[in-house]
């Protein structure tokens, strides 16, 4: 699993590659938390998930945890273009009914409040 992070305005963009599970979720979480701690103005996270080849509830839990962190401040976590496996896992877990999933980046930017 690899991540690439970039702060654009008040939005944290996180690119994720590979498999998100019990073994790799902690480094995904710390990559995101590091940015949130360093940039308290961040309102939204865009998770670019087209290259996620596998995700299970350990990875989904990290997404839910960041949602819980941003939500009280009016922000959101937005999943962008998830791979078919990731979309299925998001739906089965019920996370898809809480967190917006966008097919395109443009759609996601329109949803982010902090642009």
């Amino acid at each position: 699993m690899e991540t690439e992070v970039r702060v654009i305005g008040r939005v944290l963009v996180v690119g994720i590659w590979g498999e998100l599970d019990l073994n790799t979720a902690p480094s995904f979480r710390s990559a995101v938390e590091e940015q949130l701690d360093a940039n308290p103005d961040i309102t939204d996270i865009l998770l670019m998930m087209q290259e996620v080849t596998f995700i299970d509830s350990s990875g989904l839990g990290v997404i839910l945890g960041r949602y819980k962190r941003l939500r009280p401040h009016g922000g959101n976590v937005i999943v962008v273009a998830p791979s078919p496996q990731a979309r299925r896992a998001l739906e089965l877990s019920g996370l898809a009914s809480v967190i917006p999933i966008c097919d395109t980046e443009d759609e996601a930017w329109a949803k982010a409040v902090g642009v």
Partner: protein
Amino acid sequence: MKHGPRLWGCNLMSVKNHVTLEFPAVPENVEFARVAVACFASQISSFTLEEIDDVKLVVSEAVSNTVLHSYDVSGGIIRLSAARCNDTLTVIIEDFGKGIADVSQAKTPAFTTDPDRMGMGFTIMEALSDELHVSSVPGEGVKVVIRKSPHGAAKDSDDKEV
């Protein structure tokens, strides 16, 4: 119905192949376990790629549960068996750790002691398996039995008992 010798809950004669692996309950082995089972499952050629992904997710959840909850000290053993009985895949994941005092409570959605976890593991496993059996003797371990057949494949009714 007359039953002959049985293996993995299947009629002995219908077992086409089987593997058993043992490895320590550590996070690195979660990927190993799901990839190994996916590789084995792909011998059932009527499984779709999506169904193989579902098998990977179920195994990943089950093995993660074991890594997280079964042993107080690291290095406890997970025994993973996979068997192919005709076109039915059976996966058995066993540990020899603390066990679960209340299996039905552990299976409840969002029952978790960790705020950063989904508590959805069992729900996902149940949704994606044709059959899921969890049994435990406190102090002796947990046994999870998962069965899955390719969608639309005719099930051998003699292969359904655990």
